[in-house]
């Protein structure tokens, strides 16, 4: 690990005074960053520890939540309002990593997790445009079973590993940022970037900018929601495909539906096309499958991960079917 300086901030204002944008990284629980530093994939000259910023979960009058960036994943998953009004978020958090890691990992850090693409991790032996722009992507012709089927490019087919972010995308969460130029609020669905020609640019964060909170607002679909993660073993593994979905059915018709996929793209993939095709329709399995087909028509899998298209299709229909209950 490359030597670095360490400083701890007690709040966001102090963090912004300590940060030296070009050479510094913020650290939360460190569950991903410490590993990346140990592998020499990241080598910041300095760390500003933001894991002890105030970690509050504030309830707003309408049932909304403002979740401090330093809140631990396990704390958020067990929060009574999240369990009651945003069950897909609680379940997505509980599907991620292990209990020990959820106790360490912060909400802000979870958003900034980096891909687990094995070529990205193999600094000694593999080419990776994300790790070292311009060197090529060994995943394209390599082992790509875990890789993206949506929104990828000829430069990168890595996926985003977060479960939490998938639920937050379906919930239309807002990311609160603070930096030298003041504060700004970004919809979570616009926070992560698709790879295009610059897979090293993963989010809209500016240098030195800090995630301070994430906010979510209630709705009927959020309150009636689920998260299902399909993976090679039943616990403690990254998703081959996951689905966060919420469903609001009134008088036998879908009034509102929210769907997002994980494990299929470089960002949590909000399935707007599928949602659009379902609004006003009956909540039947045929309609769910047709909606999945509408979303997945744009899929461009590799030979090794073509199975993910059908897996995503069936997982989406299954989750919506569970939510629809006997209607589907």
């Amino acid at each position, binding site marked *: 690990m490359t*030597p670095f300086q*360490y400083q701890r901030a007690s709040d966001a204002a102090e963090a912004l005074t300590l940060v030296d944008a070009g050479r510094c990284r913020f650290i939360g629980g460190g569950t991903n960053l410490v*590993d990346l530093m140990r592998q020499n994939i990241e080598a910041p000259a300095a760390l500003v520890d933001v894991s002890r910023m105030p970690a509050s979960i504030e309830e707003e009058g309408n049932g909304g939540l403002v979740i401090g960036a330093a809140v631990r994943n396990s704390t958020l998953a*067990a929060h009574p309002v999240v369990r009651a009004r945003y069950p897909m978020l609680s379940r997505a958090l*509980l599907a991620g*990593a292990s209990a*020990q890691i959820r106790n360490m990992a912060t909400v802000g850090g979870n958003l900034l997790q980096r891909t687990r693409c094995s070529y990205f991790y193999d600094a000694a032996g593999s080419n990776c445009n994300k790790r070292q722009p311009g060197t090529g992507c060994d995943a394209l012709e390599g082992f790509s079973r875990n890789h993206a089927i949506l929104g990828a490019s000829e430069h990168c087919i890595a996926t985003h590993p977060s479960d939490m972010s998938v639920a937050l995308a379906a919930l239309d969460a807002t990311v609160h940022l603070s930096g030298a130029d003041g504060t700004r609020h970004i919809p979570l669905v616009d926070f992560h970037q698709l790879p295009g020609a610059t897979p090293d640019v993963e989010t809209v964060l500016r240098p030195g900018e800090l995630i301070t909170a994430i906010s979510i607002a209630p709705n009927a679909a959020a309150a009636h929601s689920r998260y299902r993660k399909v993976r090679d073993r*039943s616990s403690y593994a990254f998703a081959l495909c996951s689905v966060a979905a919420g469903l609001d059915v009134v008088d036998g018709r879908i009034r509102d539906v929210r769907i997002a996929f994980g494990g299929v793209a470089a960002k949590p993939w909000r399935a707007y096309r599928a949602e659009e095709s379902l609004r006003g329709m009956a909540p039947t399995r045929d309609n769910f499958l047709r909606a999945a087909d509408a979303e997945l028509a744009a899929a461009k899998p590799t030979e090794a991960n073509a199975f993910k298209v059908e897996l995503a299709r069936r997982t989406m229909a299954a989750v919506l079917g569970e939510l629809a209950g006997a209607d589907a």
Partner: protein
Amino acid sequence: MAIAINGTDYPLPDDPRVSLLDLLREQAGLTGTKLGCNQGACGACTVIIDGQRVLSCLTLAVQADGRSVTTIEGLGNESTLHPLQQAFITHDGLQCGYCTPGQICSAIAMMDELRRGDPSYVTSDLAAGPDARMREEIRERMSGNLCRCGAHNGIVEAIETQLVGGAA
């Protein structure tokens, strides 16, 4: 500027690269906590910080400043075993024993999570809390601790007896 480890204060390392695991083993001489994968995949290095189970290999020691750390040495010793240690022996919850300190630290904090009513991924009713299907709950909640000898069945049984008996 100190970390309380099993009730004794230890100074922070000068080099922030030192992990809590390395501090425990090499500076505090507490070699009960094991180095497994050193990348957060196996759980052998699990310790309890302020009541929460965490991975000491991915914790920078400087990040534990002011915290209270409990390791396997703080739970029992050769003359007075922790009841869960005895249960691991009784139920063959180990073969080589390398993962055992991490398993036991993890399980002790996990039983507190269960008593608090925290849900897991297999919990059917999030609002109601953990299922009565206790083996499924234990298996899911202990998935961050791998045992390459394959003693998982004994481990789950040992933990189950502690939950049923109400002791921890």
